[in-house]
């Protein structure tokens, strides 16, 4: 830890969520020295992706919640004259109401009910695992649901099902995000990934289906021109009305006369006024604009416009999803930060901030090992802030459910599609639920399964909010002898949504920058905008994430351009030479159309 003592840090980032990672990368990119600390042993905090086994340990950790006793003495001695101390919270209370249910059969039961000898032989490993079965049984409910074992079950049916042991065994194939978001293809995040060249660190898949659930039936939302054309549910007049409305939304600012009478009224009323049928109103409100009944017209129009502008950039839907899960994104920024010299320490936390009394600015932090690290700025996630430093605690909650299922909600010709399903509220007061179903080719779940994320803003606990939707959309069998469940495993939890807070919500020194946690919306614009504003606060004169240079353009010490010339020339291979020469001779042949598609930076996979 020698370097810590000699380095004067510019920025110290604590708890790297998406916002923090972006700030760290941006600072590091323009030459600031950045230290990144996290008390956890994984990256990205609530933005993290877990393997199935990793998630089980995370659940375990949540259940235990060890209170760390603070040893004030360790840091007391490090405080000098004229310095004050702001302690940080050591307990993360952003997750609550965690419940887990397992519907996947256990191998032991399977073996006893299964008369097929061969099967027994083929999965001997599972037998050994049965001793660990008690591990995930967290709640009373789950124990109730466990005895789904029944001799009455037809063995053939049982054979096909994925067992709990199989999930654990293949657990590494899962990348389960705590946050469920998609990337708007013209959203702030995608723009930033392209601009900063960070996109080179990740791969993306586009979302194949935009679905909705009406009257218990899952159906496709016609949102692009091709969808509207192909839709079987809409009459031709509805098609025209919908297209007309969507075309208007694309540049609604140009036609204020169309909506100015409705600026103070809900978007829904405006839709009615536009003579859209009930059907179409639902589609636009819940699945395209994705706003509530109360949302005002202008906001609804903006949301619709954003959705539409994102269409067609990377396919027929407006969304991308990063392969291996959303947790990849903070990691990509961490990587860029590291490339430009940022330093990372996991399982290493800050106990308190050292504030210079005279200037009321943080001048150093003291870590859990009792080291004092100087820094000029401190970036921290909201959950580390103690209540004493808060002016307001007005935060909301997000209800989340994570399901592992064995079939898609909308079976289609291709089973490797990511689907977004918007589920309008059952009662008008309840929040709309958003569901993202990930297929195994998104590298977030094992083959033969789907990873389903449900999200809504909370009105009760996650289970209260989301269990009705789960039972409406999936077969969840609790009664022995019933048709086997589609759902293999469910987890409910609430996550704190602090996105409504801003700097006025805290009484902290001006060079402490608090980042809010993930918000409940589908995109990540909120986090990216926050990162940009914090960055400009720290470094008002610097560019935010300029494109990273290509490796060949970087000049290393003593490697002047003159010295480089001759050596480079000799090493060029002849075939590559000719290729380029021909391009020069025939400029018309150069922009091949096949390539121009791949030109747009984030590579989207079909």
């Amino acid at each position, binding site marked *: 830890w020698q370097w810590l003592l000699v380095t004067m840090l510019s920025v110290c980032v604590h708890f790297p969520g998406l916002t923090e990672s972006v700030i760290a990368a941006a600072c590091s990119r323009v030459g600031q020295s950045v230290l990144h600390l996290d008390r956890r042993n994984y990256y990205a905090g609530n933005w993290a992706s877990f393997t199935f086994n990793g998630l089980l340990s995370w659940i375990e950790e949540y259940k235990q919640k060890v209170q760390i006793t603070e040893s004030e003495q360790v840091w007391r001695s490090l405080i000098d004259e004229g310095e004050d101390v702001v302690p940080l919270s050591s307990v993360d209370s952003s997750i609550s109401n965690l419940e887990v249910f397992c519907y996947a059969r256990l191998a032991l039961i399977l073996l006893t009910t299964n008369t097929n000898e061969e099967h027994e032989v083929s999965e001997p490993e599972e037998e050994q695992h049965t001793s660990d079965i008690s591990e995930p049984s967290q709640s009373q409910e789950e124990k109730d649901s466990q005895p789904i074992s029944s001799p009455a079950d037809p063995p053939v049916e049982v054979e096909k099902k994925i067992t709990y042991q199989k999930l654990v065994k293949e657990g590494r194939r899962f990348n389960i995000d705590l946050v469920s978001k998609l990337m708007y293809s013209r959203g702030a995040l995608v723009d930033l990934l392209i601009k900063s060249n960070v996109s080179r660190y990740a791969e993306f898949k586009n979302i194949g289906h935009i679905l909705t659930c009406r009257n218990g039936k899952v159906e496709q939302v016609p949102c692009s021109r091709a969808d509207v054309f192909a839709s079987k549910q809409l009459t031709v007049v509805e098609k025209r009305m919908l297209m007309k409305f969507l075309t208007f939304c694309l540049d609604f600012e140009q036609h204020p006369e169309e909506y100015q009478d409705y600026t103070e009224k809900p978007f829904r009323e405006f839709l009615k006024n536009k003579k859209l049928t009930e059907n179409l109103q639902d589609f636009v409100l819940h699945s395209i604009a994705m706003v509530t009944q109360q949302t005002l017209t202008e906001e609804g129009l903006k949301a619709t416009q954003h959705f539409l502008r994102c269409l067609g950039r990377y396919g027929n839907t407006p969304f991308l999803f990063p392969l291996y899960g959303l947790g990849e994104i903070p990691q990509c920024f961490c990587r860029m930060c590291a490339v430009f010299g940022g330093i990372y320490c996991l399982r290493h936390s800050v106990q308190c901030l050292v504030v210079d009394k005279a200037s009321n600015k943080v001048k150093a932090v003291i870590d859990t090992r009792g080291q004092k690290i100087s820094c000029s700025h401190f970036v921290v996630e909201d959950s580390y802030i103690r209540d004493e430093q808060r002016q307001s605690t007005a935060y909301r909650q997000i209800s989340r459910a994570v399901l592992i299922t064995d079939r898609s909600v909308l079976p289609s010709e291709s089973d490797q599609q990511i689907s977004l399903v918007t589920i309008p509220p059952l009662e008008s007061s309840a929040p709309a639920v958003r569901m993202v179903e990930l297929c195994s080719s998104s590298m977030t779940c094992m083959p033969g399964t789907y990873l389903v994320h449900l999200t809504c803003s909370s009105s009760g606990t996650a289970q209260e909010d989301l269990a009705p939707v789960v039972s409406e959309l999936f077969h969840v069998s609790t009664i022995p002898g019933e048709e086997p469940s589609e759902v293999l495993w469910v987890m409910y939890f609430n996550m704190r949504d602090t996105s409504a807070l801003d700097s006025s919500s805290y009484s902290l020194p001006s060079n402490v920058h608090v980042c809010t946690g993930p918000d409940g919306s589908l995109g990540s614009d909120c986090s990216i905008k926050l990162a940009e504003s914090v960055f400009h606060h720290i470094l008002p004169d610097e560019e935010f994430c300029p494109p990273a240079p290509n490796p060949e353009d970087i000049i290393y010490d003593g490697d002047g351009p003159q010295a480089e010339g001759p050596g480079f020339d000799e090493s060029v291979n002849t075939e590559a030479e000719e290729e380029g020469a021909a391009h020069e001779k025939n400029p018309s042949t150069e922009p091949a*159309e096949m390539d121009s598609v791949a030109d747009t930076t984030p590579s989207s996979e079909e």
Partner: protein
Amino acid sequence: MHGRVKVKSTAQQEEEKRKEREKKLKAFVSARDAVLRKRSAGEHDEEALQLTQQLLSSNPDFATLWNYRREVLLQLETSREKDEVQKLYESELHFIEACLKVNPKSYGCWHHRSWVNTRLPQPDWTRELGLCDRCLSLDERNFHCWDYRRVVVKESGVSVEQELQFTDRLIGSNFSNYSSWHYRSTLLPQLHPQPAPDSASNTSPSPTASPQIHSHRVCEEQLLKEYELAHNAFFTDPNDQSAWFYYRWLLGRAEREEMISCVYVSRERERVSVAFSKPVHAQSEGLMLVLDGQPQQVEWRSTHPRLRHSPVWLCDLPPGSVSDISNEHNLTVHWTEKYTHRDCALYTGCAESWCRDSATDQELFRSELSVEKSSVLQAELQSCNQLLELEPQNKWCLLTIILLMRALDPLGHEKETLAHFQTLKEVDPMRSSYYSDLCSKFLIENTILKMEYAEVRVFSLSNKNLTTLCHLDQLLLVTHINLSSNQLLRLPPQFAMLQCLEVLEADDNAIESLEGLYHLPKLEEVSLRNNQICKLSDLESLASCTKLTRLDLRGNPVHKTANIDSELSQLLPLVTALSL
């Protein structure tokens, strides 16, 4: 600043790139020269393949190199076993694929690929179809690929059903793709042909039947499905023309039957005029004139020297053959190539006679759209009207409605049609002249219909904003024509088809050219007040109208010409009543 990554400046990068470019150019030029030397030395070896491959992979549009490559391959082929030939050409296909990635629209590449497939002992058509699919998914309008795909489909015998599904898929992903719609229009008549009208029983649809033999029509049941598909497209995006064009094709009807529509004989002129259903070149069509059972040696000429193909042809009968008014004569014109003929009897005491099909009988002017089932058309008109309510400014919809109305009842819908034309000109001013011409055409058609219902030979169409004249072959028998107060610029050569015309009124137009007033044997009176006739030479054609005695040229710039009176009397000595 400290700790910052140093990056090469743009000037440094530029300089590096420039040097690189120079080197590459040098290498390319030397390789090219080497290849061309080898070719002129007649060397056909592996090295030639390698060299051309290097050059073509960076510049696939170098046609000479492809030619050389084919020469080399043909040479190598002779000295190899069948297996090796297969391998040779397969690697060639692989190479072409790489070239297509450099330029997917290279003529040379696609042509060479077709050629390689003809040389390949065992061509793999499935792979070729896959290649086309990939290319079309990147650029659905790459016509090189469409062309190549047609070859592949033909060679590999992909069924028409599969191809129709292929168009379903392409149209589904983007219906603004006329290539797919058009392809569909070639497939449907093969898969769902219209039952032949005579023997409806034995024409079960045979998907593999050659399209050339059958008509280009589609059976009613399938048509209804296609109408629906087109509706979905133009209700979704009424400004996209692909679907509208396809829709027009669906509504369209086969071409008119080729026939002789009228034979006219004048006793005084000893002349026969024959009108055909379409412009023909009479000298090469095998026409034969039989007068009272005797084949006649006659010389056919068109009504105007500028019309090489014309719907109206004339011939003079031998002198004296019909001049005696007390004789009855029977004429037959045979069109031997089309196995058709028309008779005409010239009765005693008649100065002229004709035999014709009336335009009303033939429903001549509905030929733009089908009249097979007016109920279907009526339903289509309703759909379009529904769309027009939502999109009152949509030109495609307006135009289609006009066409449907004309197919259903041209006279009954005349008023609405004119109103729609007015809207069209307003919403699409760029094409207002086109709409004016089209409107003129429809007005002329309507006037012809009215004239025929009234059974008169007077054609009056004044003050209707006519901008052009058409269907003049239908006016062969007209004696009086009034075209005053329109916007006509000329009397075109086709005007000479009005062989019976006696009186022409065309006041208050903007006529500059009188080309069509040419050898009109009965024309006596011409009124061209307030037009744009400027030069004396514009009036020269009038000299060929030997019966012209009255000419009104008031209000034309030509009167400013020096010595106009004397010049005119010299040019037109027969004109007795001249107004200037």
